[in-house]
C-alpha cells in the first residue's frame, strides 16, 4: 500500500509534465535582432521575457512560432523566457553585443610637460550601437599626430572591451591629437604639451638712481620651449640690509623686477628647482 500510492502519483503526474508547453529560444543571438521561438502545446499561454533592461508579459498561441522584436533584446546579457499554461517552463538564452559601433576614449592628463616618459595614458572602451560592452577581442588603433605632417600609430587588442596605451610626450610644446579607432569608428582627444621646468636660467641687471633692474633672458626649458607665462621666478637680493626675495611671474617670456640698492648686493634667481646665475653688484651710488 505504501509503495502503491507514490507509484500511482508518478503515473498520473508524469504525463502531465510531459505535455507542459515549452518554448525553444536559440541559445545565443545578436543584440537588436528580431527572431522567433518555436513553442509546443496547444491553446493559449502566457509568455514572460526577462532581460537586463526588459521585462514583458503577453498572451501567445501555443504550437506556433513566437516572434520577439529586436527592440526587446537590445541589451546584451542573459535572458529568461518563461511560458505558463497550467504549469510554467523556463529556458534561457544569451544576447551578444552587435559589433563595435562606439568608442569611449579617456585620455589623461589634458596638459602635460614635454619629454615626460609614459606621461600620457589613453584608455579606449568599445561599445556596440546599443551601448553594450563589446566583449569579443577587437583591434583598436591609437594614432598620435604631433604635427600636421607626422603620424605615429600603434594597435592594441581589447580585453573585455578595453584597450589602453601609454605614451611619452614629445620634446616640442604644442597641441597633440590622440585618436583611437576601431573599424570605421574613431574618437579624438587633444593634449596640450607644455614646456617643462626652466633650464639655464640667466639674469642680467642694470642700476639707475638707487634702483636695480633685474631681468631674465627669455626663460626656456631644456628642449628650448618657452616656459609658459605665469610661471614664477623668485629673485633674491642679499645686501647690507639683509635678504629680500621677490616672486615675479613670467610675462611675455621674461621675468623682471625693480629692487632698491643699498651698496654692494648679490642677486640670484630661481624657478622651481632650477637656479640661475649669480650677480654681484657694486651698488647704486
Amino acid at each position, binding site marked *: 500500500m505504501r509503495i502503491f500510492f507514490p507509484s500511482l502519483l508518478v503515473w498520473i503526474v508524469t504525463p502531465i509534465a510531459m505535455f507542459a508547453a515549452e518554448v525553444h529560444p536559440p541559445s545565443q543571438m545578436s543584440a537588436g535582432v528580431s527572431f522567433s521561438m518555436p513553442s509546443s502545446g496547444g491553446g493559449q499561454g502566457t509568455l*514572460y521575457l526577462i532581460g537586463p533592461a526588459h*521585462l514583458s508579459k503577453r498572451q501567445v498561441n501555443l504550437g506556433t512560432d513566437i516572434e520577439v522584436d529586436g527592440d526587446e533584446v537590445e541589451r546584451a546579457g542573459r535572458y529568461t523566457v518563461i511560458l505558463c499554461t497550467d504549469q510554467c517552463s523556463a529556458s534561457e538564452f544569451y544576447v551578444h553585443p552587435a559589433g563595435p559601433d562606439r568608442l569611449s576614449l*579617456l585620455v589623461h592628463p589634458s596638459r602635460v610637460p614635454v619629454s615626460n616618459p609614459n606621461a600620457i*595614458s589613453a584608455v579606449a572602451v568599445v561599445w556596440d550601437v546599443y551601448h553594450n*560592452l563589446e566583449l569579443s577581442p577587437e583591434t583598436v588603433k591609437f594614432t598620435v599626430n604631433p604635427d600636421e605632417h607626422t603620424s605615429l600609430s600603434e594597435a592594441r587588442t581589447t580585453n573585455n572591451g578595453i584597450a589602453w596605451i601609454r605614451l611619452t610626450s614629445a620634446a616640442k610644446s604644442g597641441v597633440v591629437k590622440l585618436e583611437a579607432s576601431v573599424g570605421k569608428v574613431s574618437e579624438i582627444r587633444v593634449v596640450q604639451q607644455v614646456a617643462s621646468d626652466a633650464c639655464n636660467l640667466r639674469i642680467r641687471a642694470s642700476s639707475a638712481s638707487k634702483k636695480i633692474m633685474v631681468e631674465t633672458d627669455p626663460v626656456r626649458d631644456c628642449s628650448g620651449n618657452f616656459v609658459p607665462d605665469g610661471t614664477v621666478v623668485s629673485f633674491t637680493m642679499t645686501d647690507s640690509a639683509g635678504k629680500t626675495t621677490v616672486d615675479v611671474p613670467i610675462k611675455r617670456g621674461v621675468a623682471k623686477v625693480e629692487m632698491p640698492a643699498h651698496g654692494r648686493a648679490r642677486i640670484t634667481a630661481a624657478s622651481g628647482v632650477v637656479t640661475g646665475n649669480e650677480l654681484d653688484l657694486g651698488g647704486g651710488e
Partner: protein
Amino acid sequence: MKKTIMRRVLLTLTTAVVIFAPASFVIVRADDSLPKVSLNADNLGPRSIEELTSKVITRDYAFAWQTMVEALEQNRPDLLDGYFTGTAKQDLTQRIADQKKTDVRVRYLDHGHKLDAIFYSPAGDAMQLRDHANLEVNVMDGQKVIHSEQVNLQYIVLMTPGADRWLVRDLEVAPEAKH
C-alpha cells in the same frame, strides 16, 4: 535600603536594554543584509590597487547589489541613485518600469560575489571587474512564484569613482567561458 539599591540597579539596566537594544539590532540587520563580496586583485593592471581602494570597491559593490535587490523588490528606482550610474542605472530603471507595468517582479536572494579585478586604468578613473555571483532568482507574477532557479552568473562590471564612493556604470552578464 538594599532593596532600594537593587531596584534602582534593575531599573537602570532595564532602561539601558530598552534604549540600546534596537540600535544594536539595526546594526546587526544591516550587516546581515549586505551580500558577501570578496575581491581578488592579483592579476590587476596596469595600475596597482591601493589597499583603501580595494576595501572601498568591495564595500560599494556590496551596497550596489543590496540596493539593486531592494529596488527591484520594492519597484523603487530612486534606490539606484546611491550606487549606480550610466547604462547600469538606465537598464535597471527600465526593468523597474516594466515590472510596474506588468505586475511581474524578479526577486534575488544574494548568496555572495567573488570579484576578480581585471583592469584598473592608469589614471585611476575606471575599474573593470569580473563577478562570479551566486544567486537564487524568483520570478513572481503578482504574489505567485512562476519560476525559481539557483544560478551562478558571471558579470562583467565597470565601476567609476564618484564623489565619495565607486559607482557601478555597466553590469553585463557574460556566458561562462567554455574550456
